[in-house]
């Protein structure tokens, strides 16, 4: 038994030694698969639609992972940045502000319409900046708090933004225009347009997919770079021990604010994408439950783990938008029950979370540090067992 274990350990060490090479190879393979994936499915299939939403969820999950996973700030109001990102798109890429006439690099059709019409890339940058700024404004009073208090206050801010979105049609911004369109929604938003490629449309989902996939790669790149940097180390240190981190010269508020603003910016980018993809920015989209949904992605993937956040986002995205509505929805009626699976989806997610916490609390792809901590604890327990059972090893 102990020989077998030693052998396993040896193999694992050998594999880990080759990991830098194999992980690079793996990354290239995954990117190539990601690029050619749409050709395997019909260009307007339900699966393609689910894939696009799942990838956008992964972007959000990566954003929240910076806040909750890296810096250890439990944010229960992440939906606020989804909302702000989506509204950035509504404001900067539709006829909503009908008195204005601003057109920058948009399709020939859009450039004849009233309103603010910016190229989608500019909107994406704008959404990131607006959300980062909002993150700083919300974070300044909030992040002086600790632990659970942060969770409560961020929850409150999430609700405030959602309420402002609902009631925004009564908030004038001049010229007879209002801040939001409330539950009516800002509709007729521009589809992304790129010179030489043309406008995206919902009959062909492939360009949408490549767009969100590119956003995912960008966000992933930033995440990976930040994790292994001075800033990333500072976040982990703050998460581990705030007093010690501050005593080692890490500025508390500034470092936390950076995490919060970066997470907000990523949420805003995904929000802007959802705005144009759903063709409407409706205040009803921004429910508290969505904050928890994104948090569940981070936790199921593995708190603090970048690849975990991606896998968690994709997994819940597919389950929510494909598996439940398209594959298993009629399962209860086949079994003789009178309900559809979509009506109990939150119950399903709750159940999944409980199962995860019982079977694999560290998440699907745990962060390297947590894995090390766990394996070391197991090794220590093994050593103790050997000690109590004598040097001959346990019973075989």
């Amino acid at each position, binding site marked *: 038994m102990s020989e077998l274990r030693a052998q396993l350990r040896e193999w694992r060490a050998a594999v880990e030694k080759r990991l830098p090479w194999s992980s690079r190879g793996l990354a290239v393979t995954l990117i190539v698969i990601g690029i050619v994936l749409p050709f395997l499915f019909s260009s307007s299939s339900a699966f393609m639609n689910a894939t696009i939403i799942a990838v956008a969820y992964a972007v959000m999950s990566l954003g929240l992972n910076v806040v909750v996973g890296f810096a250890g700030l439990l944010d229960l109001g992440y939906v606020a940045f989804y909302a702000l990102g989506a509204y950035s798109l509504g404001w900067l890429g539709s006829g909503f502000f009908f008195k204005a006439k601003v057109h920058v690099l948009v399709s020939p059709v859009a450039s004849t319409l009233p309103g603010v019409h910016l190229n989608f890339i500019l909107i994406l940058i704008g959404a990131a900046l607006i959300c980062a700024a909002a993150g700083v404004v919300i974070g300044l009073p909030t992040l002086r708090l600790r632990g659970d208090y942060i969770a409560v206050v961020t929850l409150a801010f999430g609700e405030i933004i959602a309420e402002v979105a609902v009631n925004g049609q009564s908030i004038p911004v001049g010229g007879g225009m209002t801040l939001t369109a409330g539950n009516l929604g800002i509709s007729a938003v521009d589809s992304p347009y790129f010179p030489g490629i043309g406008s995206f449309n919902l009959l062909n989902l492939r360009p949408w997919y490549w767009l969100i996939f590119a956003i995912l790669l960008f966000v992933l790149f930033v995440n990976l770079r930040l994790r292994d*940097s*001075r800033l990333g180390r500072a976040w982990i240190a703050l998460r*581990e021990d705030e007093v*010690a981190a501050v*005593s*080692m010269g890490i*500025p*508390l508020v500034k470092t936390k604010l950076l995490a919060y603003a*970066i997470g907000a910016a990523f949420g805003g980018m995904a929000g802007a994408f959802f705005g144009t993809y759903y063709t409407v920015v409706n205040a009803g989209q921004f429910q508290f439950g969505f904050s928890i949904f994104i948090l569940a992605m981070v936790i199921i993937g593995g708190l603090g783990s970048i690849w975990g956040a991606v896998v968690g986002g994709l997994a819940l995205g597919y389950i929510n938008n494909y598996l439940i509505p398209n594959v298993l929805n009629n399962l209860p009626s086949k079994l003789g029950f009178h309900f559809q699976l979509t009506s109990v989806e939150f119950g399903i997610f709750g159940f999944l979370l409980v199962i995860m916490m019982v079977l694999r609390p560290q998440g699907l792809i745990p962060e390297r540090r947590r894995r090390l901590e766990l394996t*070391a604890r197991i090794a220590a327990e093994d050593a103790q067992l050997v000690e109590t059972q004598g040097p001959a090893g346990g019973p075989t």
Partner: protein
Amino acid sequence: MSSTETPAPPAAAVSVLRAEHVTKMFGGLVAVNDVSFDVPQHSIVSLIGPNGAGKTTLFNMLTGLYRPTQGRILLGERDITRARPDLITGYGVARTFQNIRLFGAMTAVENVMIGHHTQMRAGLFGSIFRPPWVRREERQTRERARELLAYVGLREPAFDRLASQLPYGDQRRVEIARALASQPVLLLLDEPTAGMNPQESQALTEFMRAMRDDLKLTILLIEHDMKVVMGVSERVTVLDYGKKIAEGEPAEVRADPGVIEAYLGKQA
């Protein structure tokens, strides 16, 4: 507040740190009561006193974790009374903690790299785009961290292990290395020999002197082990119930009746 009220520093010695009439109250409790003392450059000064005398509270004020209710703290010429702890670290004060506070989920090397944080420049965009100077800075920081770990006597295989899994003695070493990484002028050690056997304490005593000489440091330490205190310090300050009750060379302090009373109780 005139400077004549504070005790005169020993001749020809510049003081690195000076506390003037520092008081800290928690509600009605006076944890530190009107304490003044200074730490001459390149010296090793001990802060002793019974449990609850206010030693660690004083440390927390010196490092900015607490703000004094009254009084002034000067680091060289600079007033650091109300400065933020991270800034004070940047000005050159580093510390260790009574009950070790390492970042458990980080390796020994990473812990020491955190100590170097104030000396690094990479910000958000530097971290994302990683230009050559950031790569160089990162590499140098890592090398320096390994050097420091070797300097405090950690053995190579422990460098890349998680701090939480190191044996107790190694954790103490990593904590000192982490403090040294911020390139301090003043090092505050809070009971560095706690939990050590006499041989280890003796080794640490010698190491403190070596550090002081190698790195041109000034050391202020809280210590309970009288053998260490008498062996290493040039000056000793004694606190009891938040008040300074004695100060001077180790031999003087040891003979002071007030100190004996504080430690052993009043003789009948």
